[in-house]
């Protein structure tokens, strides 16, 4: 594999020719923020928080998928970059409950994103879906990073239980005809819960503890549910 040399924030770096700007910056210790990116998932460049300014390019480039090129000059904290990152975070905060997303909260502080920048903005506030014994889907906290859909499909499990409802701002993660999870192809492998960055997907026990239930109450609840489910099967 041949290597190329480029400049990131004034520092020279040599990287494999198929490396991304994100990877090359990482070797310099330059932290480019990401939300949708996950090392185990196909990078789709959808959150655009990782955009950087590449000289001679009209538009900002997503560092997670843009390959390095010899002689490339990259700026990861230019004014344009900062404005886009700050505004993306402010818009996200105006649409989604980020209370369970400490990494995004830290990014908001880093980029001086204002809370409530967008007054009277429509928020996505669906009720939590408690339809299976394993995990909760609270899409009011979902940032549509797609990781759950990807690990449920070709990135890991090949289960294909998840897709999308709606489009645009109205997009939400959904199942076939919005069926409850036990009636879908879901095998409850838990990988979606593992990759969720915002607490939209979480283990049901954790969620019940957060709701103020004691461990004993949770045990009683789940026992009752199992009895009910056994009766239904008979």
């Amino acid at each position, binding site marked *: 594999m041949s290597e190329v040399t480029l400049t990131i924030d004034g520092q020279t770096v040599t990287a494999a020719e198929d490396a991304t700007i994100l990877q090359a910056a990482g070797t310099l210790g330059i932290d480019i923020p990401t939300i949708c990116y996950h090392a185990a998932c196909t990078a789709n460049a959808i959150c655009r928080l990782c955009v950087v300014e590449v000289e001679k390019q009209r538009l900002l480039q*997503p560092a997670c998928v843009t390959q390095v090129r010899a002689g490339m000059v990259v700026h990861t904290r230019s004014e344009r970059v900062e404005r*886009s990152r700050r505004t993306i975070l402010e*818009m996200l905060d*105006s*649409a989604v409950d980020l209370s369970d997303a400490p990494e995004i909260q830290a990014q908001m502080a880093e980029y001086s994103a204002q809370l409530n920048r967008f007054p*009277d903005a429509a928020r996505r506030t669906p009720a939590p879906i408690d339809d299976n014994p394993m995990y909760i889907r609270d899409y009011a906290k979902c940032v549509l990073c797609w990781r759950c859909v990807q690990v449920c499909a070709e990135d890991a499990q090949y289960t294909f239980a998840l897709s999308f409802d709606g489009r645009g*701002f109205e997009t939400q993660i959904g199942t*076939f005809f919005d069926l409850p999870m036990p009636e879908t192809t879901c095998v409850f492998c838990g990988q979606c819960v593992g990759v969720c960055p915002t607490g939209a997907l979480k283990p049901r026990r954790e969620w019940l503890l957060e709701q103020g239930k004691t461990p004993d109450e949770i045990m009683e609840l789940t026992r009752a549910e199992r009895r009910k489910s056994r009766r239904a099967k008979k």
Partner: protein
Amino acid sequence: MAESLAASLDLTPLRSILAAHADAGRSALLPVLLETQAHYGYLPQAVTAEIAHRLGVPLAEVHGVIEFYALLYNKPVGRTVLRVCTDPACALRGGDAVLAAACAVAGVEEGETSADGAVTVERSPCLGHCNSGVSVNVTFGKPQRNITFAHVTPDTVEELIEGRGRTTADFWSEDYVGGDLSIVTPLCGRGRRTRLVEYEAVGGMQALRKALTTMTPAAVIEAMHQADLLGRGGAAFPTWAKWDGAARAPEQPKYFVINADESEPGTFKDRVLLEGDPCRVLEGAIIGAYAIGASRIYIYIRGEYPLAIERVEAALQELRAAGYLGENILGSGFSVDVEIRSGAGAYICGEETALFESIEGKRGFPRVKPPFPTTHGLFGKPTAINNVETLAQTPYILIHGPDAFQRLGAAESTGPKLLCVSGDVVRPGLYEIGFGATLRHLIENLAGGVIGGKLQAMLIGGAAGAFATPAELDTPITFQGLRAAGLTLGSGAIMVFNDTRDLRDILRRLARFFAHESCGKCYPCQLGTQRQYEILERVASGVPLPGDVDRLRDVGWTMSDASLCGLGQTAAAAIFSAMKRWPQLFENGKVQ
């Protein structure tokens, strides 16, 4: 619930649809969903599950596809569905009043179905009949038919409901076609399709014959290069470069795609070409397929253009019968055929990679570029994709030569150009001009001047375009001349507003269009189009909040700089141009 539904459904129509398509696998998903819905009125769960099973597509992904496209329904809708255009051009002619009248007749709010199941009323994005609005797209009957009506008024909208008048009669729009030139449009605007024999009688198909029997593919591409033909869909990319890239790509097979998903508000030129003279467009496409060595041509026509779909199908039958399509065309050894694909209600599918995804049976999400279509296009194979008007230009180049083509235009913008003029002018219509004519000539001479008041503004290039003022009337219409004036030709849409119009209302409609049509993939556009719309709602009502101008700037720049595809990158363009020209519109102010 699912079982009881299945029991009451007759699955015979579904089985015959699937039998005809099943071999095509996932790529047949959209055609199968559209045909199936035409039989059942919507896509019931049991029926959808059977489709997923037979085409080998995961259930959840079929659901995701249905949810993406505005013309597909997974819940029952009315026996007649009325989709009323309220985007700018139709709004000037009373789109809101027609929508209100439709709701009143049906006894519903917008987006709802009447209690008796007779009528669903929806608000529609631009339907491409901007010269003859108010337009209403109507689905009705069993199996369903789809017609887009023009010149609808609050008094006549009721007649569009099945059984109440017009849906049984022909009620197509008549398009006014004029201009200085008649190179591309001599056979358009006659209220009917030009048949192949008529096209041949005026020299049609001679360019294809010349290419296939006397020219190498490389010579065809070189002719496009010499002519300097730039794409007419909006991006003005050199046609020869697309063809050359796809021709040189080593992988096989290769595909040629005609992008007929015309949906840019204010734009109707491709519809007029396909309805009036489809053979010319198809001739250009066969020439292009020969140039790149494609084994198959797809034409992706937006779902709201049923008449164009019908007429292209008729033209294809004539072309096959005459030996212009199929095996060994004109004895040249070159073989290709054309497959029509209907869109299903998604502006984003006009973006080339989203269009590929749609043909592949997926949600119309644009792909990350690079790689580019010339090497990784449809089905991941080398693909050339061109706009309808671009292809209609190519036969002339081969017959009359690149020099003659260049002389029709201006220095760097060669050839003729079709302009869609709508709004407050005497004669809205499609105008063919040579590049270099001025906006003044187009509006005052060709379109007959402004009506209802004095000229206030022109929106050039559609929703993704920019506003011009009367001071810019003498700007020459070329890609470069408009760019120098801070404008863009885009798709060739020119919407004219007189000085009685409230531009804030127009801006609000443009913002709503983008919010409705964003695919939701990348954050800047998914969130930004919604926030932009909310702010412009406030601006249009005359009571913006302090800081709204800064919010609009940040949202607009973020969409322009950081969005994944051209939709988001241009979603703030018209609003920015208005902010620059009329900053007072964005301040607190009483609505007239």
